[in-house]
């Protein structure tokens, strides 16, 4: 597979390490009342669609950026690649 890195352009997916569902960015609040349940769901109940999937890849053999890749799990077609850091900020993550 080829991942079109937003900074570097197309690179062989072999340079990347796969993590999984991009919702892993949305780490719950540890102080919330139902934190254990929230963390359980966050960690274990991930998106697993047959179709479009937003997922985290790490350019370990490259520039060490974490990316959010939108990829179809039936065809492997990739429709968008973003820097995970940007996505994380958009989703309200900060310090």
């Amino acid at each position, binding site marked *: *597979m*080829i991942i079109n890195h937003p900074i570097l352009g*197309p690179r*062989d997916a072999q340079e990347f*390490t796969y*993590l999984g569902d991009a919702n*892993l*960015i949305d*780490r*719950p609040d*540890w*102080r919330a009342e139902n*934190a*254990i349940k929230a*963390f*359980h769901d966050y*960690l274990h109940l991930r998106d697993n669609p047959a179709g479009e999937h937003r997922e*985290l890849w*790490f350019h*370990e053999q490259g520039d*060490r*950026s*974490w990316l959010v890749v939108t990829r179809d799990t039936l*065809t*492997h*077609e*990739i429709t968008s690649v973003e*820097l*995970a*850091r940007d*996505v*994380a*900020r958009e989703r309200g*993550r*900060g*310090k």
Partner: protein
Amino acid sequence: MTQVNRLQGGLISRDRTLNFTFDGRNYQGHPGDTLASALLANGVRLMGRSFKYHRPRGPLTAGSEEPNALVHLRSGARQEPNTRATVTELYDGLEARSQNAWPSLKFDALAVNDCLSNFLTAGFYYKTFMWPAIFWEKIYEPVIRRAAGLGEISFEDDPDVYDKGFLHCDLLIIGAGPAGLSAALTAGRAGARVILAEEDLRPGGRLLAETSPLSDQSGATWAERVRGELVAAGNVRFMPRTTVIGAFDHGIYGAVERVSDHLPQPEAGKPRQVLWRIYSKRAILAAGATERPIAFANNDRPGVMLAGAMRAYVNRWAATPAQDVALFTNNDDGHRTARDLIAKGVNLAAVVDVRPNAPKVDGAALFAGAEVIDSSGRLGLKSIRIRLRNGETRDISCGALAVSGGWNPNVHLTCHQRGRPAWDAGIAAFVPGDALPTGMAVAGAAKGDLSTAGALSGGAGAAVQALRTLGITAKPPDLPEAEDMAVSLKPFWHAKGTKRAWLDQQNDVTVKDVKLAHQENFISVEHLKRYTTLGMAIDQGKTSNVGALSVMAELTGKSIPETGTTIFRPPYTPVAMGTFAGRSVGKEFRPTRLTPSHKWAEERGAVFVEAGDWLRAQWFPKPGETHWRQSVDREVLATRGSVGICDVTTLGKIDVQGADAAEFLNKIYANGFVKLPVGKVRYGLMLREDGVAYDDGTAARLAEDHFVVTTTTVNAVLVYRNMEFARQCLWPDLDVQLASITEAWAQYAVAGPNSRKLLQKIVDPAFDISNDAFPFMACGEITVCDGLRARLFRISFSGELAYEIAVPTRYGDALMRRMAEVGAEFDVIPYGTEALGVMRIEKGHPAGNELNGTTTALNLGMGRMVSKKKDCIGNTLSEREGLNTEDALRLVGLRPVDPTNPVVAGSHLMAEGGPVDAAHDQGYITSAAYSPVLGHSIGLGFLKRGGARKGEILRAVNPLEGVEVAVEVVSAHFVDPEGEKLRV
């Protein structure tokens, strides 16, 4: 008498004669020959035996789809089983032997299977061999296994090497036949970066086998001229002997280049083959088509071959399989073979054409509306029996029969991303479907465009089209005039009869087998394949699948496309496993990482051990030491007695800087780091988000905004990755920057009561490392040996007064030598990982065996380290009930009740006097060692409620090795439990 069946002409170089042997007999051929063509020229038709019935077989084809003519090529360690004689280029000294035959190819004992064929039907083995049970492994299966299989391996290590390579192009063209060549001309002239891959040794494809001209020149000449232009252009890479084996995602193709297979052996240093990974923006599949046979009784005898193949042997290789030949066809293309044979002076005994209105053939008897219904000849075809239109039968003697049932486009690669081919009734064949791999187009015969003119114009058109999508303007070249015969095929699949008619020749699947499968409800194509083994042979059914589908379609009354399609899987043709492995084998399987003191340790005779990709000194034997324990015991005692040095460079080191560095570490580690003062080190435990401990190490604060974190050797990459995840994805606004510095610094542990004295001899006087100035857990940047920058950490894994000192790696070797030199007065010794392990077990420090990915801080006895006052990875889920039960495992120390007994890691712990079984398992021993300090074996282990069981006697059972030892539960800190030695 040699080369009795050699004809005039052809694309072979008669100016050289090549000697070769087959089954020990000498033969001659010429450059340009394949093994099959040379054997045919020498009058040899019998080349192999079939898989199940051990039927005599000769070549069915002249290409890579060959199912029959499989041989052992070469000998000794280079023996290659199952090598297709049809694509083996002849070289001088070639050695080939037949396979799957004993005692000889001509007299094969297992040909008895053929007589038993009525019992050995499809799937017979599922219905028997069940009684008595023990007979399966002992009797039935060994017999089956010996009879099955085809070739043999030598069991010697393959002496050849294989390369990998990576290529990038705008357009990959697969196949250099007329379609591929015209596509390459078009794209080449437009300036695109083109790769043209061809499995044959020269361009031309089918043109090399045909006699019809391209304008005023032969097809082969035209192909050579095109090659010349392409190679000269510079932007086209023509790759002969290169088979594209797979279409992978996003325009990536795998291709195998056979660099040295046409040579007796590779030149020194050169690879046998190269696996190319080709990154293409667009691809054109111009892989041609494969002719299909017509099934009839005993249609598998040596001498029966596809008509196009026979034409190729005659035209390209000037070899005929026999002097008297017949043709069996249902289409006009078959008649080309007749014409070419006659032109070459081969006697054409009969043309049998199933079409009542078949065209006449000058120079041969035509039997229109007739069928071949049987054949005879034990080791090679002697005669065929035909059924005339009026129902009469007639025998015609001939040594070879050319069979043509039409052509199947080579859709193989179009299916690699699970696209299904579509049925084209016009040519009665499957053609590429709509769902092609992204970026792929198909042209020429592979698309079902079976005329040469169609291939030429189709190839050019496909190239124009493909380049247009890349923004490159191309125009079709002037193409030569070529035959443009329309193909309209009325399929004829098999001649009816009661005898066996072969569909899959290699796997011996006959029409009868398909009927039986139908009868037993194996009607789905996948069931049919799996039940009969149809299409499982090395051609993946290229010559058999459609024929079998036609039989099933007849039986079910459905059409062929309704009956189903099978799809092809990579690779296109079989590929040597070594080719996929490339250079990363043997000692080079993975890179070897060496520590800075490696050379020095080698000089000292160290024994090395793998630690991940690292090689580390395991122990340093001294003269007279005959057992590793002697060396290790000595190293431990010497270190604890005075001072020892160990290379700990392999521990991961990560530089953490930024205004929020401390806050960042607070989130990464279970315990707190914000309050760690500058100049101090702290032990840290890392949890996974699921609350399980996964790594530990230290963090040294070199400045307010600067830490150096260490990880375990094996987890260095993982921790660094996880830290980047936390930094970029979880807390993207923290000001923190990370860099791996594992390799940049040589780091040595200097341990033992005299460690400070030794260090004082190398640390520059400006730096006070006395106990007061540089206490336990201090760290700092210093200089050593007169000005060399260094980092010093007062940390201890051994439990002794100890330090770790780091210098830039290039000085690591010299520093080790210097420390050995200045430490001589303290009898300093180097110690290896084994002594390191003993000392950490004596001290009760957990390591990889304890941090095994299932244990929590609670299990490790560090439950209180997990801060509940801050957010950190893993703290929330570590609170789940299942991880905090009453009887949770706790790390304990274990010592044998009888001190002469060993404690063995991997033993399970059982209560004294209780039953020994899984239901009563109390825990297990993780690490064990002989403690030279204590004079007996010791162990660490996890024990249910272990914290409250000190003094209890348990059974450490090891039924695997038949050993049981009584052990006492003790503190895990065997040596210096209060840690006094650390602080002096």
